[in-house]
C-alpha cells in the first residue's frame, strides 16, 4: 500500500463571484447587527470533506457545499469522465430517445473551488479516516460522504454476463447508455421477427428505480400493440415474490392493467440463470426448478453497494441490509457508527429510495447535517424517504408515483392526481425531468 500523501489543497483559490458576494453581504449584515448569524458561523466551518462518487448525489452535494462552505476544503473522487442521466435509460431502451441524449461531460457539473480527484477508491479505512485510491495515493479526510451509487451484479445470474446484452435476445436497461441502446435493438429485432415469447424479469430485491422493469414491460407492450399483431406475441412477467410495486395502489393498478393487456404473470419465480444460446431461463420456484423458453428476455440482475463498500467497515453488519449496503440512519443519512461519515444515493441501506428523486431529497439533508456536525451540533435534518417514479404505463402516458417511508404518498403537485395516467406526466418524464435533474446536479433544487 502506498504511503504517498495526496495534496488536496488549492481548492480555495477559485471562489466564485457569488461566493464573494455572499460573504461580503453577510459580513455587512453582521457588522450592522453586531451578531453572528447561524449560517455565517456555519459557512466558516473548516475541515477536509471528501465525497466519493461524482454521480447524481456526489455532484449535487459538491455544488451545494461549494456555495455553503467557502472555508472548507472539498474533494470529489471519481474517475468517470462522463455523466449519464440514468432516468433517461428507459427512454433509450424503449426507442424514444437516442443514447447520446443521456450523456454529458462530468467536468461540466464539477463546481469551481472543488478538488476533483480522478481516481477510484479501492479501500475505505474508516478507523483512520483514510482512503486508498487506485492511483496508489492515500487520501485523509475529516468528513466523508459515500455516494458511490450501486453495482449491478450481472454474474449473480448464472450463465449471464454484461457483454451478452444485445445478443441472443437479451436486453437489460441497467445501467449504461450502451446497454439501453442494445436493449432497444433486441426488442426491435424481436418485434420485427413477427412473433414469439417475451420474458420480463421483475426486481430481484433492492434495485435502482424499481419501476424500470415495469416501464420496460409497458413500453414494449405499446410497441407490440402498434404492430397491429399483438396476438402473435406472448408476454410473460416473472416476479421474485408476489408483488411488482411497493405501494399497494400501483401494484394493483399494474397487475390489473397487465391482465387486460394479456400479460401472463409468474409469482415466486426468482431468476436463477439462463442458457443464452438455447434462449432458456431457469427459476427457483417454491415447487422446485422451472424453465421457460423465450425469444426475448429483459433481465434485472441483483444489485448491491459496490464491493469496495461491502468489504469495508462502513457496511451494515446486521439486519436486512447486512453485508450489502452502507449503514446509515435512514433519516439523518449519518453513519450509525462513524459520525463523520454520511451516505447519499443508491449506496445506502434504507427502505425504498434508490432514485434520483431520492437524491434530490437527501442532498439538502446531508448538507444540513454535515454542516451541523462540523459545527459540533446534533444533526437534526431528516429525510422522509421521498422517492418518485414517473411510472410509464405506455409510450406517451405515465403516472406520477411519489411516496416516502411507510409507502405514504407524497404528491408534490396539487394539480396532478398521482393515481391518474396522464399525458402531462409523460411530458414531465420526456421533457422536464432531465432539466430538473441537471438543476439538481447544479445544487439548485
Amino acid at each position, binding site marked *: 500500500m502506498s504511503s504517498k500523501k495526496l495534496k488536496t489543497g488549492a481548492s480555495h483559490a477559485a471562489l466564485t463571484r457569488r461566493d464573494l458576494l455572499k460573504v461580503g453581504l453577510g459580513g455587512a449584515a453582521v457588522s450592522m447587527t453586531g451578531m453572528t448569524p447561524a449560517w455565517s458561523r456555519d459557512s466558516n466551518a473548516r475541515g477536509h470533506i471528501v465525497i466519493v462518487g461524482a454521480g447524481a448525489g456526489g455532484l449535487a452535494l459538491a455544488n451545494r457545499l461549494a456555495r455553503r462552505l467557502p472555508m472548507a476544503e472539498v474533494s470529489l473522487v471519481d474517475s468517470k469522465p462522463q455523466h449519464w442521466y440514468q432516468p433517461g435509460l428507459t427512454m433509450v431502451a424503449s426507442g424514444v430517445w437516442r443514447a447520446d441524449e443521456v450523456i454529458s461531460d462530468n467536468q461540466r457539473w464539477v463546481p469551481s473551488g472543488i478538488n476533483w480527484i480522478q481516481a477510484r477508491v479501492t479501500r475505505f479505512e474508516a478507523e483512520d479516516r483514510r482512503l486508498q485510491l487506485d492511483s496508489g495515493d492515500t487520501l485523509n479526510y475529516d468528513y466523508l460522504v459515500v455516494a458511490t451509487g450501486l453495482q449491478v451484479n450481472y454474474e449473480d445470474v448464472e450463465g449471464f454476463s454484461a457483454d451478452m446484452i444485445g445478443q441472443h435476445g437479451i436486453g437489460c436497461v441497467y445501467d449504461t447508455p450502451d446497454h439501453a441502446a442494445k436493449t432497444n435493438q433486441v426488442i426491435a429485432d424481436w418485434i420485427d421477427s413477427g412473433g414469439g415469447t417475451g420474458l420480463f424479469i421483475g426486481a430481484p430485491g433492492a434495485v435502482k428505480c424499481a419501476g424500470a422493469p415495469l416501464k420496460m414491460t409497458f413500453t414494449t407492450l405499446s410497441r407490440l400493440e402498434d404492430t397491429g399483431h399483438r396476438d402473435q406475441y406472448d408476454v410473460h412477467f416473472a416476479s421474485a415474490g408476489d408483488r411488482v410495486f411497493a405501494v399497494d395502489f400501483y401494484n394493483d393498478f399494474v397487475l390489473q392493467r397487465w391482465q387486460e393487456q394479456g400479460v401472463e404473470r409468474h409469482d415466486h419465480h426468482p431468476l436463477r440463470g439462463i442458457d443464452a444460446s438455447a434462449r432458456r431461463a431457469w427459476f427457483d420456484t417454491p415447487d422446485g426448478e422451472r424453465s421457460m423458453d423465450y425469444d426475448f428476455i429483459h433481465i434485472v440482475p441483483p444489485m448491491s453497494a459496490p464491493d469496495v463498500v461491502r468489504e469495508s467497515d462502513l457496511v451494515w453488519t446486521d439486519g436486512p441490509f447486512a453485508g450489502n449496503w452502507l449503514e446509515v440512519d435512514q433519516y439523518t443519512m449519518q453513519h450509525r457508527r462513524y459520525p463523520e461519515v454520511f451516505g447519499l444515493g443508491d449506496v445506502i441501506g434504507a427502505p425504498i429510495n434508490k432514485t434520483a428523486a431520492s437524491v434530490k431529497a437527501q442532498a439538502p439533508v446531508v448538507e444540513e447535517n454535515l454542516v451541523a456536525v462540523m459545527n459540533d451540533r446534533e444533526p437534526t435534518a431528516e429525510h422522509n424517504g421521498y422517492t418518485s417514479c414517473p411510472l410509464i404505463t405506455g409510450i406517451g402516458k405515465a403516472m406520477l408515483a411519489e411516496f416516502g417511508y411507510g409507502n405514504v404518498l407524497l404528491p408534490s403537485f396539487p394539480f396532478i*392526481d398521482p393515481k391518474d395516467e396522464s399525458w402531462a406526466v409523460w411530458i414531465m418524464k420526456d421533457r422536464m425531468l432531465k432539466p430538473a435533474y441537471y438543476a439538481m446536479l447544479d445544487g439548485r433544487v
Partner: protein
Amino acid sequence: MNLMSILTIGWYTLQPLLWVIVVAVALLVLVQLLARVRGYYFLAPAKIVSVVMSFMVGLWAMVIVPILTDSSFTMVATGFDWFALTLVGLGVGAYCWLIVHPMIYLFRPSLP
C-alpha cells in the same frame, strides 16, 4: 422551490428550444414593425381570415403537440392534460394572430 431553482430548471428546459424561440420572436418583431410602417395598429379591425386561420392553427397545435412530445392525442386524458393542451392551443393561436393579422395589412394592395 425558490426562484433560483425555477429559473435554473426553466433555463435547462428551454435550452434545446432556444433557436425556435429566437426565430419566433424575430419573425414576430419583423412582421409587426414592417406592418406598422404601412399603417397597421394592434386593434386594427380584425380581418375574419386572420381570426379563422389563427383558430385553425391553434387547433392544429393541439393535435400536433402531443405527437411532438413522443405521445399522441389519444393519451390526453386528465383535466390537467386538457388544461395544458388548451393553453398550448391558445398560445399558438394568439401567436399566429399576431403574425397573420399584421401580414394582411402588409400585403393588402392599398391602405385603408
